[in-house]
């Protein structure tokens, strides 16, 4: 995992990813959305590998295509009419806006996914463990509950299947009911056990101090300062302002601003 920005302290990586996600969410420029998407996908490929990433990218593709197809049905702006549906205009500009908007949304989702790789249930304990031990426990267990829930649901589903229960065509609902019922009984027990075990090992006495093998160093501070500058710059300067209606077009291209945005998005891969 020690690739790209992960070589730095996890706080640095979190700061960078959160910042980029925020910039991507508020910037609707076509160039920036595409750049953000490509960069987020590359970071995901780097950390999660090809197999996991390709599934998520496939889901993004479906989302982009669906959004592009649906947007002209809601928004009838634009001059280039492709067809008419129920007497309403289905415009090329609305399709283009749908594509770029979905790309921007997908990019933000991928950045959030990249954040979740770093932000594990353990991080909650590290951040809140000392002063808000109960909050840390709740957050950590809530974050950790999802994989536990999925694992248990899979085991119960396998067992239900092998018992020959509800394998007929319309048995799905009853199967889901059975699995949910079993989970309701088993999950709280596991959560209580876990919190007792943490308590047993001294958690919650107010002395918690997070052990970090890589503390925040000068180079981390430097990266954060550089990114602060990038973020300010991204809010002030527009590299390629885009208008989608009535006709799609890019007003001008600010090459230095575009180059700096490129560095901001792709630096996490090279850092």
């Amino acid at each position, binding site marked *: 995992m020690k690739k790209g920005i992960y070589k730095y302290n996890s706080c640095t990586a979190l700061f960078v990813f959160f910042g980029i996600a925020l910039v991507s969410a508020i910037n609707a420029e076509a160039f920036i959305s595409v750049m953000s998407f490509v960069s987020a996908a590359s970071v995901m490929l780097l950390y999660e590998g090809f197999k996991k990433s390709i599934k998520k990218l496939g889901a993004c593709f479906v989302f982009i295509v669906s959004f592009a197809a649906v947007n002209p049905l809601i928004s009838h702006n634009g001059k280039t009419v492709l067809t008419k549906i129920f007497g309403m205009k289905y415009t090329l500009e609305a399709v283009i806006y749908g594509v770029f908007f979905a790309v921007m949304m997908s990019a933000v989702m991928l950045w959030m996914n990249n954040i979740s790789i770093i932000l594990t249930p353990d991080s909650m304990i590290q951040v809140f463990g000392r002063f808000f031990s109960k909050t840390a426990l709740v957050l950590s267990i809530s974050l950790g509950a999802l994989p536990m829930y999925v694992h248990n649901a899979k085991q119960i589903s396998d067992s239900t299947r*092998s018992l020959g*229960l509800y394998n007929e065509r319309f048995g799905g609902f009853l199967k889901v009911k059975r699995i949910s019922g079993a989970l309701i009984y088993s999950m709280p027990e596991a959560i209580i056990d876990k919190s007792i075990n943490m*308590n047993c090992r*001294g958690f919650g006495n107010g002395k918690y101090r997070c052990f970090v093998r890589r503390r925040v160093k000068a180079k981390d501070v430097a990266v954060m300062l550089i990114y602060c500058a990038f973020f300010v710059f991204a809010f002030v300067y527009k590299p390629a302002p885009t208008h989608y209606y009535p006709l799609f077009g890019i007003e001008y291209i600010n090459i230095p601003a575009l180059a700096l945005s490129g560095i901001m998005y792709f630096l996490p891969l090279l850092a």
Partner: protein
Amino acid sequence: MLEIKNLCFNYQGEEKPALKNIDLKIDDGGFVVVYGKNGCSKTTLLRHLKPETAPNGVKTGEVFLNGKSIDEYSGIESSKTIAYVPQNTSTALVTHTVYKELAFSLECLGMSDKEIYLRIAECCEYFGIGRLFERSVSSLSGGEQKLVLIAAAVCLDPRVIILDEPLSQLDPISCKKIVNVLHRLNTEKGVTVIISEHKLEDVFSVCTRIIAMNNGEIICDGEPMTVANDIFEKNGITEGLPSYIRLYHMLGKRIDCPKSIAEARESLRKIDLKAPERLTEYQNKDSAIVCKGLNFKYGKNDKYVINDLSFELHQGEITALLGSNGSGKTTLIKILAGLIKPADGSVKYFGKSINKIRSSEFYGKTVAYLPQNPIYVFAHEKVSEDLDEIAACHKISKEQKDKFIQLFDIAHLINKNPRDLSAGELQKCALCAVMLTKPKVLLLDEPCKALDSKEKKNINKMLLSLRKQGISILIVTHDCETAADVCDTCAMLFNGEIVGIGDKYTFFSNNKFYTTPVRRMTDGITDNCISDIDIKRAGAACEK
């Protein structure tokens, strides 16, 4: 010194006391084993020794550590002095990476990074787990997870370490590793070790004291050899005693009481032990399952878990697949149960490919699968509700259902919540539930895991009675003794391949390390002795 004074305990809403008048004194530096069958309150007793784990209920009496009541210990004092390792590793591991797990207790005490790093580095060296340092805890085998938990508990340098059935879910090799680690802690660092176990084979030679419990009471307490003989004389739970002690009593004390397998071998050389005849019952050579060239791996870049595996299960035969934790046993049984698809190869049931059997026919009438954790079979508040649901789904009449309940002797359990049952009781109920589907082939994943020897015998009896009805049974286990007691054929799985297969006598006789304790004692002395039954028969023949 740890002292328990007149401890009595009732769980909330339960009339029957879980602990009755427990009086104990445990000296510093002892290695104490609390021994007893499932449900005899071993865990309840151990949980009272650590204030944070004390169960809810009505308690009288007190526990003192170094003259101070443990209830008066602060959270920090308690975690520094007493370490507790619970039985269930999945909830005991509180973080996601090995080094974070090792650091957790130290973090809770507010130690500096430098101190923590040094302490966990020392622990890694001491326990030999340095190679696991950066690994995710979920990627470790059962034995490795237990080792990490013990190391994490020891990081704080406690004076007392309490372990609840640390060996019950481990393969024989991992068991030995854990026992060695505990023995080292006890002898080299003087840590008081208190463990609960229902099988004494591995710990008998290293422990200094055994406390035998039954129904919440202490029935014997003292040095290991004295307690073992006491248990035999008082007709207690003898099945969990080491094989060499059982041998001594099975042979009518005709040899000197051995203190180890090596001593037992020496004693056996002195008497003329006759080889008993082999017990073989199944005759049918028709196939129930045939699988050929199976390959399976979880991820594209992962190693093959099942590697070009071919195997056959005959009708009315009980076969055991043995192997250490992580050897691919569960993966194989899931492939055979149709729950995961192999990358290559074929699986045929009664000559028909698994892919060509309709789901309703396959799971309803052909195969039943009992998962490693039997709790996954139950989804309702009462056992009876699940049995009713399965019976209704498979159109089983009430009379037939009652017959099964009688066969498995669970009538007194069906109105209980499955989560309140002991491991053995739960296993019996789960077995009854899967048998309601009326299968021809039964696939059991570790059916004797966490069961005491008596419960194991009960389950074995049931399996033998099912075999008599013509049901083929495949058991996945790492328990050699169970395999020797109940199976016809045994196979050893290693690295995703079957490396040895044969009838149980040939299999255990050929194996030099992965074999039963009885075989280890009789190897080179007599043939066909792999289990207690064989020893008894050999002893009887010798008497004649």
